[in-house]
């Protein structure tokens, strides 16, 4: 979505236009959910955070600063909500959820073995991601999953671009090692990765 188009939607939504608000939600909910899912490792929590973030943003649209991107704003709100949720109750992703993600999916009769193997790789990937420090995980997700430019990530996280890059490099290196460790536990992953 073009920035001018987005600004127009924001203006309309702030004046009480329901349709404009809906377009904004639909434009950003998938990426925001993907980001939160990768960050939290918990689908329910990610969904709750996404929903509340949109509610907060849409009820405070008059506070939107047009110098920034709408996505940056809503990701910031969502991240704060997640951090607050973590402070209120200790996150459970570190052990429980990782084990859930890491469990091999039950093989249905006749299911394609290759697809099963891809599922295991996804699990491995999520486990590796959750094994990264939060900053590195966030940068890897924003850069590789959501295609945010380094500059936007630096602005969003309020850190220099060089720091973003070093986090990204370290995150990738660590993720590679975690994946290798996962491979050593599961032969299927090696099969799926060329």
């Amino acid at each position, binding site marked *: 979505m073009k920035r001018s188009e987005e600004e127009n939607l924001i203006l309309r939504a702030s*004046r*009480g*236009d*329901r349709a404009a*608000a*809906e377009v904004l*939600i*639909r434009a950003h*909910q*998938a990426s925001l*959910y*993907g980001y939160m*899912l*990768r960050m939290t490792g918990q689908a329910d929590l990610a*969904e709750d955070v*996404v*929903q509340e973030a*949109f*509610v907060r943003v*849409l*009820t405070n649209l008059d506070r939107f600063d047009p110098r920034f991107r709408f996505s940056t704003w809503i990701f910031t709100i969502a991240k704060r909500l997640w951090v607050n949720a973590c402070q209120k109750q200790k996150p459970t992703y570190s052990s429980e959820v990782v084990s859930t993600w890491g469990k091999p999916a039950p093989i249905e009769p006749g299911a394609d073995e290759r697809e099963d193997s*891809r599922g295991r*790789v*996804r699990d491995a*990937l999520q486990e*590796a*991601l959750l094994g990264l420090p939060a900053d590195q995980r966030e940068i*890897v*997700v924003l*850069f*590789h*999953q959501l*295609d945010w430019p*380094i500059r936007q990530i630096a602005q969003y996280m309020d850190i220099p671009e060089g720091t973003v*890059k070093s986090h*990204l*490099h370290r995150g*990738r290196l660590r*993720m*590679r090692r975690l*994946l290798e460790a996962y491979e050593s536990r599961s032969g299927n992953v090696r099969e*799926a*990765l*060329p």
Partner: protein
Amino acid sequence: MTSARDRRHSEPLSDEMVNAFFDRELTEGASEVFFSKLRSDLPRCAEVARMQRAISLLREPIEAPDVSARVLAEVHRRRRFIPESLRRFVTAGRLAAAGVALAGVLGLFVVERVSPGALRLSPRPRPVSEVVQHAAQDAVQGVSGLAGGTRTVVVLPGPELKDQPARRASAAVHSLMELRPGVTSAKLLATPRAGADDSMIIYRGAGPDTRIVLPEVVYFDRNAAVVLPLGHMSPSRIGSMDWAGVSSDNLFLLPAIDPAEVVRAGKASPRSEDRREP
């Protein structure tokens, strides 16, 4: 002799170059060199391919739940959406309200310019003498009424002062009334007290601050030579009177004053002053 290009191709693949590749920062020429080196370094190639595969899995779309309906319902609950047909009226209404507010401010400004102070909600502080002047007639009437009801004002409830009615009476003041700035409330002055219905307190200050207080009904400003019944004053006015400097040392009791005489006291020397004890 090997060219610089050949040398670049023969050097091993550096981590910086791999990172530049994943950071999407390789130029076209650098990409060519990168892939050329990758082909000749199979372990590195496998490593890069594995990471590339992981990244591509990371980029696979995630099936996200549609939260739009729930979000819109919650937003509508907190801050109602407005149908399009009404939105223009709302906009017009907001503009009209802003216009009215602006006109109001301008109007106030103009009124204030034309007639400064006209818009004050609370009365401007005025000297007590001015207040007294405005209430002079009421005061005279009040004193006349007092004269009708009480021939003489009997002071000094304390037994030791019965025979010397006009003397310095700090002790009697205590028995009569504590009149202390900041402590004695004007309301108390206006409240009838048992056993002191006819009593009178005279404050013997000097100059414009000189006042006589008839605690039950009358406030007397010697300087303005008028008597003002307290009953004719609003509590806020009484409360705003300046009691500074009033103490038992400059309070005197008078044995008897004809209220009519009190009215004249400002011009002639009041009896209280004549009888003042050293």
